[in-house]
């Protein structure tokens, strides 16, 4: 006997509920009185005493049950407004040289070591870069980042970047950021002299977890490049990628490492598993968990520009606006390096709905 055809109107849509937040083995369940006490202590530390939270305090907040995530987010939003103001910084990014990277970052579809759908393409010409920067500027962006899939720039590549930076800045009227991998001291100096406003180099994950996701260079090499960026007077943009299998303790470890590094900006990425990469079969972070960690990054790094970056559409779906009231104060709009984002118009509408003005944050924090 044939099965009845489901009624498309009345059949409920299948949804997958993510597992609720669980405390780790050996950790006590946190009751309401204790949860309130931890939040009050964090509020006092950040807003009254003006000090950073310790790793232990952040761990205590990370243990709060799911029902307390909205309280965590509310505190993070209050801290963001107090420390950074209501403005949201908008940025566009462009993969100026795609694929063919010799490194083995397990999350990345641009590594030549993995069989992914991404075809390597050469350095875009200056006109293409200018057009992309103009597209970005038209969406209200004040920052445009030139990104290259390289271990670090060779001399020819560096020369091209050095020529592009003043061209884009002067013709388009945006701050120009660059992301071109590991730098030597001399390369960092020359980029700073060329007018690079901000240099992106992500730690991605905690020192203790990094060898599980990258084996071709070390966490310490990344740290050294970040140090050079600051030493030569560029603003440091140093981000995180959440959802690669790291533990909650390792996420807190990364926040404390970023506290020490003191970047201007922290782009917060959520793993969007890429076909063909070692992490291609990973499960994206649950939306509610992502909100928890947005709030924790803000509470751990109260004065940074905390930017929504890759993976937010996949991870947060309808909760993207909630992240804006959980500590985020910057966005990458439009498309990413190899994947598409939602339209800039949707993001700008979201900001208007939230009554959050768009503006450059550089130099005010």
């Amino acid at each position, binding site marked *: 006997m044939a099965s009845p055809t489901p009624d498309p109107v009345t059949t409920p849509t299948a949804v997958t509920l993510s597992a609720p937040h669980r405390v780790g083995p050996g950790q006590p369940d946190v009751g309401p009185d204790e949860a309130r006490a931890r939040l009050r202590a964090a509020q006092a530390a950040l807003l009254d005493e003006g000090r950073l939270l310790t790793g232990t305090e952040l761990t205590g907040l990370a243990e709060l049950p799911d029902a307390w995530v909205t309280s965590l987010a509310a505190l993070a939003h209050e801290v963001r407004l107090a420390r950074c103001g209501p403005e949201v910084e908008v940025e566009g990014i462009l*993969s100026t040289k795609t694929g063919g990277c010799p490194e083995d970052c397990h999350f990345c579809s641009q590594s030549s070591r993995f069989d992914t*759908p991404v075809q390597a393409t050469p350095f875009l010409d200056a006109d293409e870069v200018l057009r992309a920067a103009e597209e970005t500027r038209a969406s209200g962006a004040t920052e445009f980042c030139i990104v290259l899939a390289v271990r670090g720039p060779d001399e020819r590549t560096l020369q091209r970047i050095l020529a592009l930076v003043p061209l884009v800045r002067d013709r388009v009227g945006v701050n120009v950021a660059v992301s071109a991998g590991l730098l030597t001291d001399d390369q960092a100096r020359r980029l700073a002299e060329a007018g690079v406003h901000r240099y992106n180099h992500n730690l991605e994950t905690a020192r203790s977890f990094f060898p599980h996701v990258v084996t071709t260079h070390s966490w310490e090499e990344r740290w050294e490049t970040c140090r050079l960026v600051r030493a030569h007077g560029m603003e440091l943009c140093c981000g995180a990628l959440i959802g690669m299998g790291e533990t909650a303790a390792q996420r807190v470890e990364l926040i404390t490492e970023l506290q020490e590094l003191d970047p201007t900006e922290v782009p917060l990425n959520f793993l969007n598993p890429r076909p063909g990469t070692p992490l291609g079969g990973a499960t994206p972070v649950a939306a509610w968990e992502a909100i928890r960690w947005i709030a924790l990054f803000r509470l751990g790094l109260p004065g940074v520009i905390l930017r929504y970056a890759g993976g937010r559409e996949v991870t947060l779906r309808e909760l993207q606006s909630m992240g804006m009231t959980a500590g985020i104060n910057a966005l990458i709009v439009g498309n990413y390096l190899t*994947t598409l984002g939602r339209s800039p118009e949707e993001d700008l509408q979201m900001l208007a709905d939230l009554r959050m003005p768009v503006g450059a944050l550089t130099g005010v924090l």
Partner: protein
Amino acid sequence: MDRVATGAGDHCTACGSAICPGCGRVLDPPRFCRVCGRRMAVTVTPGGFRARCRDHGDLGST
């Protein structure tokens, strides 16, 4: 994640297979030529993308 179907008889633009019914994800640009299944050079910009097959030229942009 929603799936994007390619047309019947086409190669899948996400994996290049001639028999795949469409395994692409909504926020992925096409990566393989729908005519021949060859991997394409794709440039993603903040406002769109351009996909080019070595044999069949430009095959998609926004």
